[in-house]
């Protein structure tokens, strides 16, 4: 498993850990915001805190207030895959 795949898997695990319906599978296209999303606003904040901890363990600071969070079309929260991608991108940028 590559580092990227492993990190993506860790982000998906963090999302899964917050789901009430544990049978739901988290994948690249799983929506996090809007219609059909898995998380309410409280869970979304909890996810951010969880990813902050994960990032801290990896030696970087995960910024969940970046401009990317605000864009509807590019929001890091639009899908699980987008979130994992942004997480990995922030880690790479801060290395």
């Amino acid at each position, binding site marked *: 498993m590559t580092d990227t795949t492993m990190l993506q898997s860790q982000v998906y695990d963090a999302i899964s850990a917050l789901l009430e319906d544990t049978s739901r599978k988290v994948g690249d296209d799983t929506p996090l915001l809007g219609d059909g999303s898995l998380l309410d*606003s*409280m869970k979304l*904040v*909890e996810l*951010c*805190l969880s990813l*902050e901890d994960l990032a801290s363990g990896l030696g970087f*600071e995960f910024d969940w*207030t970046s401009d990317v969070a605000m864009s509807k079309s590019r929001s890091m929260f639009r899908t699980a895959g987008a979130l994992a991608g942004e997480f990995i991108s922030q880690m790479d940028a801060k290395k």
Partner: protein
Amino acid sequence: MIVVTGASKGLGRAICDRLLTKDFEVFGLARNVTGTPFPSMSCDVSSYEAVKAVVQKLKKDGVKITGLINAAGIASMNLAVTTPPAVSQNIVQTNLLGTIFCCQLIAPLMLRHKAGAIINFSTIAVALGLKGESIYAASKAGVEGFTRAFAREMADFNVTVNCVAPGPIDTNLLKGVSPLQVGRIVAQQIIPRQFTPDAVSDLVELLLDSRSSSLSGQVLHVGGA
């Protein structure tokens, strides 16, 4: 630990002094913290990056934050039409955006343990629409609106968010306001007498106490308005 902004003087300092007498741990923020007799850090709350640096330090130190008191603020008593744009920007940047920055960056430290109290500061100038304070009142009206909505966002995490709105309290913020003007404002309060920083500190203590956990999104007027 309670984080207090505007901790070097005025109401912020009075609140810090009171909390210390009640055995709270206080961490003060102010632009100049020289000589502050409690743990503190220099921070201009109008700068998002400066507040972020404070949060990074608090995280690094591993302290548990249980309260945030946003007492930092500036005022300029002028007619809106005679106020330079830089002054208007500075007032909004410090009073409104400073409060927002501190809330959005420091609140997550409380969300982690699902407990805490945030106390913002407004002014009687909002409720009374005081002449000569329109820009200051606008910045603080923003704080009140933010407080009410942010309180809902924080409610899931057992963090209360309230606002204290004092009348004219005898601090540096009142310099330039004549005793006659102060008297006119005080006369419009429901309790028409000038209160001291002690009255404000009493309310802060109340809002930090778990017995006020049913209060959130409220604006409490010192003296009544």
